[in-house]
């Protein structure tokens, strides 16, 4: 598996650290049912078999956080962007 970092180019996966599902959103402090929403954000995962948006950190490179779309069935990397970019853009 190789990830094409926007800064460093195509690099071996061993240079990157994996955080997981990029869908994590911290619930706003004034949201309804806060405990339930925190439970969902911290613990529940979609865990799809297929394309998955996930966060990787280029730890042995430029230290950027990346948003990677990867097929969990084949390990094919479909798209790579900066973590700060909105999904899909």
């Amino acid at each position, binding site marked *: 598996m190789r990830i094409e970092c926007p800064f460093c180019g195509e690099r071996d996966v061993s240079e990157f650290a994996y955080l997981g599902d990029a869908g994590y959103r911290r619930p706003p402090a004034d949201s309804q049912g806060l405990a339930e929403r925190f439970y969902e954000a*911290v613990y529940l995962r979609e*865990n799809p*078999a297929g394309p998955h948006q996930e966060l990787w950190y280029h730890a042995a490179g430029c230290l950027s956080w990346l948003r990677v779309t990867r097929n*969990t069935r084949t390990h094919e990397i479909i798209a790579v962007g900066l973590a700060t970019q909105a999904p899909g853009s």
Partner: protein
Amino acid sequence: MRYSIFSLLRQALAGHRGWEPAWRDAEPKPAYDVIIVGGGGHGLATAHYLAKVHGITDVAVLEKGWIGLGNAGRNTTIIRSNYLLAGNNPFYELSMRLWEGLEQDLNYNTMVSQRGVLNLYHSDSQRDSYVRRGNAMRMHGVDAELLNARDVRRMLPFLDFENARFPIQGGLLQPRGGTARHDAVVWGYARAASGRGVDIVQNCEVTGFLREGGRIVGVRTSRGDISARKVGMAVAGNTSSVARLAGVRLPIESHVLQAFVSEAVKPLIPCVVTYGAGHFYVSQSDKGGLVFGGNIDGYNSYAQRGNLPTVEDVCESGMALMPAIGRVRILRSWGGIMDMSMDGSPIIDRTPVEGLYLNGGWCYGGFKATPASGYCFAHLLARDEPHEVARAYRLDRFAAGRLLDEKGQGPQPNLH
């Protein structure tokens, strides 16, 4: 047919032409009392104990491929009950006791070998944490012995004791731990369950659930609809996918774990050894192959194969621990998909959907749990209440903050 020395002799005299298939490859009926989804070790064990302990025999185990082709047939066969937490220890000790009587119970040679599991320590602080674990085990009535370097040297003289960075100071030994033959466990449970009337249906993938009101009343499968009073999931790495068919989201990620086996060599490693300074563990199969592995690759995966950085990491750790392993050639490597839960511990519980029961989140340690998992899941399915030793494995523990985090890693599945 009961297996015994007499049946063997009779068959030997008859030229071995009278053996019957060990279990019945059944056609699905339209309805059952209980359906178990997944014909791995856990699903088949559940069916066996449902029939044997609770007298519920109108049961089908539905397997999408062939039984035992999932993790049950891919794991490195280590069994142990060296757990720290009070929520875990009695469960794994029940499993160990069931292992100890399994061959008599199933009338099948599952090759349970209590050769000992040794966890090495390489620093004072690691020793202290093993002392704590060993004491917790002994307080639960589980065997544990702290060894110093001299003791370990006697058992495993070929390890790199004087390693400059991670010298071996000793280890925590569970003498009753060891290995069992994974395929035989699958076949033994299948045979015992089938003998009591359970239908084992292969090439039957569950693709959806039948509902009446909110309740689950059966499953849609690749071989037609089948109704059931209760449906239990035991699908290991596919837990999230199957639960999603019922609209249930879970605190689980699927990850790939790799394992390796070398060419056969003469008896070398008398027990199971785990390296305390890296991700590596090894034992020797009865055929002579060194069976070893390390950590999960660390990213979500359903691919049943891993990547090279993990292979490299495992081999490097192996070389650091026992340099002699460098002379042995690797025969095969493979991967399996495990359902890593958010606290590294399993779930055996009802789901929010009436009629649907969950057995999952076994991470990379579910083989040793097979007997107790089946025992406790059968208890839950039969009586609608958790078995005493599985009380901590509730699905609501995440929301309630009662996590069972042996390693203290927090909700990050690839760290457990």
